[in-house]
């Protein structure tokens, strides 16, 4: 086995193009478990820790944030929690402090597990994943097109994840996760919501209730048509939203829960997160906080 330690992004891309079979490692919180338990024995590891670009984030001219694939959950919460509240809320539920000190959104995307906690907020906010290869340059992949199957993504063998792009929240955002206890749990299922009041639109993301993380598209379209942004939340609209969110899932029975339970829980979380977000929006609290 080889251990490659590129010092720059260009070197990393060259190494991955040269040897597509080597496996990137960032926080190692997924990768090292597989190595320790001999689940995987790749021909080489490509350590990305030394690449400073990956560990930083910036505000771009178009107003969006470009967050390096190697920014840890702990830093994301501390440095971007105010601007990316939904993703920060999800990040707070990842593992333990030690895991959040090392684990990254880039690694979560690389692993592409349907249970990864960053995925629902990435979907709900319309985030875009920036990937790059030495041969073909940069590709910008909307989160909704990134996840292809269980632990399969649109990333090509010669590509690396450089960053994700996300707009600072323009409205309330929430994340909800069902697990057997408060800390250190993989989601039984999860749900993220993002209100975009300017566009009179609501974004959604479902986790761990289908082969891939996915949006609840029909539920989003329903809200776009039916939500009255000037008034209280109609209980019938809320009920129907939960129902449509639940119908968007296609869960399975597994060790963590049954398909029936997941369907039920998605409806509950959809109603709850919309209620939280709506109350925050109507109270004017979000505008005050953002202003």
């Amino acid at each position, binding site marked *: 086995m080889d*251990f490659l330690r590129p010092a720059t992004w260009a070197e990393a891309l060259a190494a991955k193009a040269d040897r597509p079979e080597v496996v990137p490692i960032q926080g190692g919180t997924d990768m*090292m478990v597989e190595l320790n338990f001999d689940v995987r024995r790749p021909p080489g590891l490509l350590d990305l820790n030394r690449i400073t670009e990956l560990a930083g984030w910036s505000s771009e001219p178009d107003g969006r944030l470009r967050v390096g694939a190697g920014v840890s959950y702990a830093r994301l919460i501390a440095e971007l929690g105010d601007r990316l509240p939904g993703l920060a809320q999800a990040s707070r539920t990842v593992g333990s*402090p*030690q895991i959040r000190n090392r684990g990254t959104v880039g690694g979560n995307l690389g692993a592409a597990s349907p249970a990864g906690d960053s995925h629902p907020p990435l979907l709900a906010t319309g985030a875009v994943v920036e990937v790059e290869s030495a041969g073909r340059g940069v590709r910008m992949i909307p989160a909704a097109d990134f996840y292809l199957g269980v632990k399969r993504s649109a990333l090509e063998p010669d590509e690396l994840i450089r960053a994700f792009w996300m707009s600072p929240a323009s409205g309330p955002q929430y994340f909800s996760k069902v697990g057997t206890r408060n800390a250190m749990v993989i989601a039984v299922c999860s749900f993220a919501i993002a209100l975009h009041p300017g566009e009179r639109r609501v974004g959604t993301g479902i986790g761990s209730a289908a082969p891939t993380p996915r949006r609840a598209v029909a539920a989003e379209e329903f809200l776009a048509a039916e939500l009255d942004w000037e008034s209280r939340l109609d209980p019938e609209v809320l009920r129907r939203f939960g129902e449509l969110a639940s119908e968007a899932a296609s869960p399975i029975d597994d060790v963590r829960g049954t398909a029936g339970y997941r369907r039920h829980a998605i409806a509950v979380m959809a109603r709850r997160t919309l209620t939280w977000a709506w109350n925050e929006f109507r109270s004017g609290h979000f505008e005050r906080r953002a202003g």
Partner: protein
Amino acid sequence: MRVTFTVNGRRETADDVWEGESLLYVLRERVGLPGSKNACEQGECGSCTVYLDGVTVCACLVAAGQAEGREIRTVEGLADGDRLDAVQEAFVECGAVQCGFCTPGLVVQAHDLIERIPRPSDAEIREALAGNLCRCTGYEKILDAVRLAAARKAGDR
């Protein structure tokens, strides 16, 4: 491969390190620092917690090669000679140690908490220690120890 890093202020070099090896293995088996414990090797128990460039991590999930050139502080590096750190002292006094297997990880994680938040609330203590499992004590005496250590350190200041 060869890996060189600083641990508890001393420069150490480990040879013949397997590329897929963890920092925990290197510390325990190659550098002779068995304080950090190996219980789960999957980030679940926290008994291998060490500082890596000032941030607490599970050493079992850091690839040895990722530690190259970096600074590690283990439980062995907390005491000042024969003088125990306040966290270690409080663990002994409060009876927060039974079999002791979880202790090194808890001590490092609690040490970090008090460095960052000198007067942590109970909720903050529980949150900080959520990734450290203890099968013996039932945690109450561990919480007592962290409260005592924090109070003493705050009093020192």
